[in-house]
């Protein structure tokens, strides 16, 4: 295994760990609060990190596994990716734009695309005669990834826009700097999650090699940064919280509520 392949593996394992732990934690939170956002994004993180990534590792292993294992892994990964990215669409719409018709439409189209492409991937995995051909790119896989890129761009744009609003509120004492930082980190999580699947998307579109060294470097670095941002956002260590809050100045307003 080359150094770059090790980097990709390490970043994948980091994402499985970070996404899995944060996903479980958010689902536990949802159990207490009954809140839709934590339920949806916790489920999505669990699907994308702890289910789909390990299964895709099985599908694309250097030594192809038995056909039934390959088919089962691809079915599981396709369902997990379709549900996971659909959840990110729901989260972005419900949290940032709950009252906007265009956002509901975009989320609806995105969810339709993800579920449709996921279903097509499942059918392909179950019906394609030659199981070894499952390792080759398919249109349904490309659509799944394009939908994911769209939701990551949307999520990042909304997060950075909202962080900019919160930053203006902080000096007035109307926003918590840690929350503003968390919103920004969620934006960066989306940026680097999108970056980590960008080489596969580009290779499918152009017919290039997704396993080229540069692609491995991009996937590895983006995956690690994505995991780091996700961890700092939802499981920040005490020193990080002190650092964020310590760098903030708040105006004291006499008589303010």
């Amino acid at each position, binding site marked *: 295994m080359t150094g770059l392949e090790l980097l990709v593996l390490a970043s994948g394992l980091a994402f499985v760990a970070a996404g899995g732990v944060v996903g479980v*934690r*958010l689902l536990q*939170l949802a159990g207490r*609060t009954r*809140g839709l*956002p*934590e339920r949806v*994004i916790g489920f999505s993180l669990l699907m994308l990190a702890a289910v789909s990534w390990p299964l895709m590792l099985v599908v694309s292993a250097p030594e192809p596994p038995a056909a039934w294992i390959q088919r089962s892994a691809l079915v599981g990964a396709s369902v997990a990716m379709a549900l996971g990215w659909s959840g990110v669409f729901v989260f972005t719409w419900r*949290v*940032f734009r*709950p*009252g*906007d018709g265009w956002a509901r439409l975009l989320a609806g189209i995105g969810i339709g695309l993800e579920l449709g492409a996921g279903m097509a991937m499942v059918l392909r995995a179950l019906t394609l005669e030659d199981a070894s051909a499952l390792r080759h790119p398919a249109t349904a896989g490309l659509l799944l990834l394009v939908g994911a890129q769209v939701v990551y761009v949307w999520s990042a744009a909304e997060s950075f826009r*909202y962080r*900019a*609003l*919160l*930053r*203006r*509120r902080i000096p*007035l*004492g*109307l*926003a*918590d700097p*840690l*929350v*503003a930082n*968390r*919103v920004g980190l*969620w934006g960066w999580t989306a940026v680097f999650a999108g970056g980590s699947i960008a080489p596969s998307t580009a290779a499918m579109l152009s017919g290039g090699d997704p396993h080229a060294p540069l692609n491995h470097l991009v996937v590895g670095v983006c995956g690690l940064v994505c995991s780091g941002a996700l961890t700092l*956002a*939802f499981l*920040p260590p005490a020193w990080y919280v002190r650092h964020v809050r310590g760098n903030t100045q708040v*105006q004291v*307003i006499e*008589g*303010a*509520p």
Partner: protein
Amino acid sequence: MPDSAAFECACVELEARTTLDRLASRGTVRIALKQAGLEARSVTPEQLAVVIQKILPSELSSRGVDAVEEVCQRILGALRGVAAGPISDTPDAVFKRLGGD
């Protein structure tokens, strides 16, 4: 989405207490809100009270409004009568919760 009751109340009061017309009043409050990172459709009475104390006075002065302090106090008084409305799950409230704060 309609503008919040707090925003409407502040604009009506500003228009009534100054020579600013309806359009100028609403525009002035919107500019003050934008500086504070707030939006007319979601601003609460409490948030708007801070904006009226910290940002609106300079905006009114730059528009040649007289007795700025008194005008702002009148608006604050009117805002006290505005109900806070239902608590909505704003993005910052959601992200605060997601962090376990």
